[in-house]
């Protein structure tokens, strides 16, 4: 009974909250003061966008911005529920895996006419970001920020293992022997007797510090690991991005990459999946259980901030057979097609996508804004705090050095199918090629 009554209570409180939320959006007469609802999920960024909102209201005294923040999972559930109830926020922060369904159900306003009328300079943004949010000549948002990937490592541990920081600047990788990247990982792996992974007497059953910490709950994109290396091995996710309809997870180049990761745990250089921790990789790195892993630029403040227990530094990703490739991803701001204040909402989105707002955000050093000059500001802000994060910016600027993570319909289902396939390959339930072929068939069947 107890679980039932708890669920009932939860429903009841939801209903009350929803009722309250409904009350807050009062009707306004035309010309009067307008309040726009703006939603985001990252609590680290809320303060920066509040600053933007204050600046915006100063310039447009009749428009007030009300920012609401909810954690990732709840954010999307709330948003979808609110849209279904016909009471969505006027403007919200969008991301690749969720936004296609809002586009196909006609919930996002096409802002191309506004962009044309106001002559917004789309070339001010980091290359390609603005195109992610377009479909068939329509535009569903202006880019606000981007992120790239790098290696993060425990500086003191690597030093103690005799690995020179300079050697990490140009690592190589290939799926056959792992290149110099695998050598470094092996050297950084230490067993309980203090022998490293290259020592013939190395005991892989009693590892004290793993050279590499993998992320296996990484969806269909492998942004925190396999995706970057597979791309540097010549793998592409799908026929066209965004809005492709044919995935290519059966590409042998991806299977090779997964097999290489599997070989790392077989050699004892990284924890096997069935003996892996359920805790996040940064907790494990902070506990000194691992030496190297992949990190996105959104993790900068976790690794270099005051909360970090050990000293960490970033290094560029290893270069594979096709060169160095990092996943790049970006967010945008979307206007709800059902908003009562289209013009005001556009004004706010335009401001969010302008240097005026992005310089404020960049100056706080929380994320890298989409406008190139504002990114430089973010870089300077980090450097001012003594944090070396140039590698993320360099990688983003390197010609041909980035790839966009896929944006298609059915993003969440694809994510689960591919993640399960890769986990079953890593667990040895099936070999990589077979598991990926099966998943790819299931994924492509979603688009029929």
């Amino acid at each position, binding site marked *: 009974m*107890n679980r039932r009554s708890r669920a009932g209570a939860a429903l009841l409180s939801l209903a009350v909250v929803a009722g309250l939320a409904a009350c807050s959006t009062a009707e306004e007469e035309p010309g009067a003061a307008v309040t726009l609802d703006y939603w985001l999920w990252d609590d680290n960024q809320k303060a920066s966008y509040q600053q933007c909102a204050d600046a915006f209201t100063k310039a447009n005294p009749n428009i007030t911005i009300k920012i609401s923040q909810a954690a990732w999972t709840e954010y999307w559930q709330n948003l*979808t529920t609110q*849209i279904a109830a016909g009471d969505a926020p006027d403007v919200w922060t969008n991301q690749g895996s969720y936004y296609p369904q809002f586009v196909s*159900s006609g919930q996002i306003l096409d802002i191309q006419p506004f962009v044309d009328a106001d002559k917004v300079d789309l070339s001010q943004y980091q290359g390609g970001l603005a195109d992610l949010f377009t479909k068939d000549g329509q535009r569903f948002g202006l880019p606000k920020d981007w992120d790239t990937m790098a290696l993060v490592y425990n500086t003191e541990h690597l030093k103690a293992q005799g690995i020179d920081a300079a050697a990490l600047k140009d690592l190589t990788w290939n799926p056959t022997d792992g290149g110099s990247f695998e050598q470094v990982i092996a050297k950084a792996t230490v067993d309980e007797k203090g022998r490293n992974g290259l020592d013939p007497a190395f005991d892989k059953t009693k590892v004290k510090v793993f050279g590499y910490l993998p992320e296996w709950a990484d969806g269909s994109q492998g942004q925190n690991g396999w995706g970057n290396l597979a791309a540097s091995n010549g793998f592409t996710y799908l026929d066209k991005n965004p809005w492709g309809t044919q995935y290519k997870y059966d590409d042998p180049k991806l299977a090779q990459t997964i097999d290489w990761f599997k070989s790392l745990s077989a050699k004892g250089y990284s924890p096997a999946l069935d003996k892996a*921790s359920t*805790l996040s990789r940064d907790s494990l790195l902070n506990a000194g259980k691992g030496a190297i892993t992949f990190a996105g630029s959104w993790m900068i403040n976790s690794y270099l901030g005051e909360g970090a227990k050990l000293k960490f530094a970033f290094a560029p990703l290893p270069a594979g057979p096709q060169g160095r490739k990092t996943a790049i991803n970006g967010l945008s701001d979307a206007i709800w097609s059902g908003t009562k204040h289209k013009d005001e909402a556009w004004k706010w989105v335009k401001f969010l996508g302008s240097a005026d707002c992005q310089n404020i955000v960049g100056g706080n050093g929380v994320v890298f804004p989409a406008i190139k000059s504002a990114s430089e500001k973010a870089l300077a802000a980090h450097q001012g705090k003594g944090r070396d994060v140039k590698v993320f910016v360099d990688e983003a600027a390197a010609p041909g050095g980035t790839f966009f993570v896929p944006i298609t319909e059915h993003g969440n289902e694809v994510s689960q199918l591919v993640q*399960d396939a890769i986990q079953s390959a890593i667990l040895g339930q099936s070999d990589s090629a077979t598991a990926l072929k099966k998943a790819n068939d299931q994924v492509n069947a979603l688009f029929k």
Partner: protein
Amino acid sequence: MSATKPRDDRRAAWWFLAPVLVGFAVFYGYPAARGVWYSVTDYNMLNTASYVGTENYAKLFADEKFWNSMLVTAWYVVLNIGSQTLLALGVASLMHRLTRSVVLRATLLLPWLVPNVTIGLLWMWLLDTNLGFVNQLLHTFGFDPVGFFTDETWAMPTVAGINTWAYTGYTALLLYAGMLQIPQYLYEGAAIDGAGEWRMFRGITLPLLRPVLALVLVVSMIGSFQIFDTIAVTTKGGPVSATQVIYYFIYQQAFKYFHMGYAAAAAICLALILGLLTAIQMRMLRASRSDLA
């Protein structure tokens, strides 16, 4: 009894029942009816639902993930109900026959008072392969680390164990309350006849506890089928759907993929199965009749 004609209270009774009935209709009846309707539509929250007949059900019966989640849930129920009921019976008899300490009874309830999400997080840290206390302990005694949540054979027993830990005290208390209704003289008589504790447990406690036991089993089994929070916090259905129970399956379909119609169909199937199981259990345990009467 007095000879005056008893007043007809039935009209007044409805007034007292009304608050419950209204609550039931608004929070259970109406949503359930909507659920049945959604299960035959293609509703995805953003479109207007249109009737698709039995398509969702046909797809559901052909979906290997659905059947897998049913199997996984059954495995969980067996593990959880088995261990929880046995342990609770043991604890309840100990309380019944050995001590009547109120402090002890209250202490048994403590894990049940902790929110499930907290319990999930607590055990996630305790059982973690690299940083967890339990694995440090195993290591000290020379065992290899166990990936309690990440090893496919261990993941489900671990989740079942956690919930057993959380609910045993509560179940034990229900059973204990049932045991208190058994007349003390039966035990005294048995003791004079020279029966030991185990004999008394089998011969007196168990048979006379049957109606209560049946109710506890039904209620905890329904609760057990609805396992969700522990899994949502710890394993998220993994590794490779080894802990993808039916509730998590429904949750994913409804709130991650927004397949409301499909999720509603799965939920209706679950409700039917639960109703059937409850009916069977009530019949087999003759729950409505007590041997004390």
